[in-house]
């Protein structure tokens, strides 16, 4: 099981076991990660699962599609390493993936 590390808005580090095939957002919900709200449940219809991908991990993820980019573009406090975690599937290769939850989602 790959491990995913979430940094919650207050800086708390949460390392959790993720299930391959679920999304990073679903992993966060399963473990009650603070700030990953996911109002739309992964339909890419809101931006409440927004997180920043740490370091070199960004380049190792599949590129976001148009829908995700369009949603992200207008999301609060968007940065070059912003992703919607509902659009990032967990794979074995992502063992150690670290994402930070934006402070405004606290």
């Amino acid at each position: 099981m790959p491990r995913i590390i979430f940094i919650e808005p207050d800086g708390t580090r949460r390392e959790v076991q993720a299930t391959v095939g679920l999304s990073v957002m679903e992993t966060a919900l399963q473990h009650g990660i603070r700030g990953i709200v996911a109002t739309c449940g992964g339909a890419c219809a809101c931006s409440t699962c927004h997180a920043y991908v740490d370091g070199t991990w960004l380049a190792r993820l599949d590129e976001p599609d148009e829908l995700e980019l369009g949603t992200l573009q207008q999301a609060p406090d968007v940065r070059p390493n912003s992703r919607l975690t509902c659009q990032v599937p967990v794979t074995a290769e992502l063992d150690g993936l670290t994402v930070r939850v934006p402070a405004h989602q606290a």
Partner: protein
Amino acid sequence: MDQTTVIVGASHAAAQAVESLRREGFGGRLLLVGDEPHLPYQRPPLSKKYLSGELERERLWLKPRSFYESHGVELKLGRRAIALDAAAQSVTLDDGAALAYDQLLLATGSRPRPLDAPGADLGGVHYLRSIADVDGIRAELGPGRRIVIVGAGYIGLECAASCAKLGHDVTVLEMAERVMSRVVAPEMSAFYSEEHAAHGVKIHCDTMVAALEGDGRVREVVCRDGSRYPADLVIVGIGIVPNVELARAAGIACDNGIAVDGHCRTSDAAVYAIGDCCSHPSPRYGRRIRLESVDNAFEQAKTAAANMCGRETVHDRVPWFWSDQYELKLQIVGLAQGYDRVVLRGDPSGKAFSCCYLRGRELLAVDCVNQARDFMAGKKVIAERPAMDLDRLADPAIPLREAV
């Protein structure tokens, strides 16, 4: 002494309320009563990926079971609240248990509007609101069924798309003159009708169901104009009815739902209501509104929790909704009611465009088809209420936020 809060209803609003109440500092006893046997789950995928079989049931849970344990919630699932005594501050469940409360949060939701036609109780006639509903539909979905869907609103059309994707023969009957007529402009209705036709779905508008016929099981749908549609399965999606009975019987004021104020408080100071079951005064729209949406359920849960914990907040949000049909992501922000003109951004034939609803120069709502940028920008613009420049608005190359 420890306070007790009882939440009746166990869907989106309730799950969020649990989290928010604890976050706001509520340290007392917390009970969650739900008449379905399941943990609170996401309803939007039911007509989409759960119906089409792309999403397993376990992926519907809003929170894992451990969340309720860690939040100190006593779950009363599979239990229906059958009576409320507001004076005694007590809720009675269908197993006879009486739950005394200091504060009560009603998140009773809504139920499908029943089809009022002879034969509506035949076998093979389904509604779509719960996991059990969809499991019932899926159990009858053999290969190549003839499915008649009554109602061309969101649920009906999402259902039609999911069933068409599975290869079934789908007919949609709608009594209004066009699809989704209650919520979108004719331009949008025309676009969606064409998309469904392209996927082989037969939509008949201006068609009112007169009766369902069959021998214990539905075989045919008969319409007022005499037309008949053979059916192996009928799915009815003609709107929902708020579950107000518990509150009304207890003497709590209702007005198109349980009537709450801006703090989500009912006419009884110890009782709050949130989500589909209630109507609230909207400063933005200048009238009482009842919203049927996940976002509203979540946000009202937060508002109610804050007020229940003594932190005064008022619920006033720009509502938003979404609907997935085929590869089309429809995102709607705002309420279009009262619009006097429509401005299209982009060409519907490209399957990525927005439909803007205005009253004068104020943007009231935007329907975005595969156009998330406009959706996100629309949320901000509608909240800020600037006067729009209609020519710039019609140019999709100009960002919506700059069309002022």
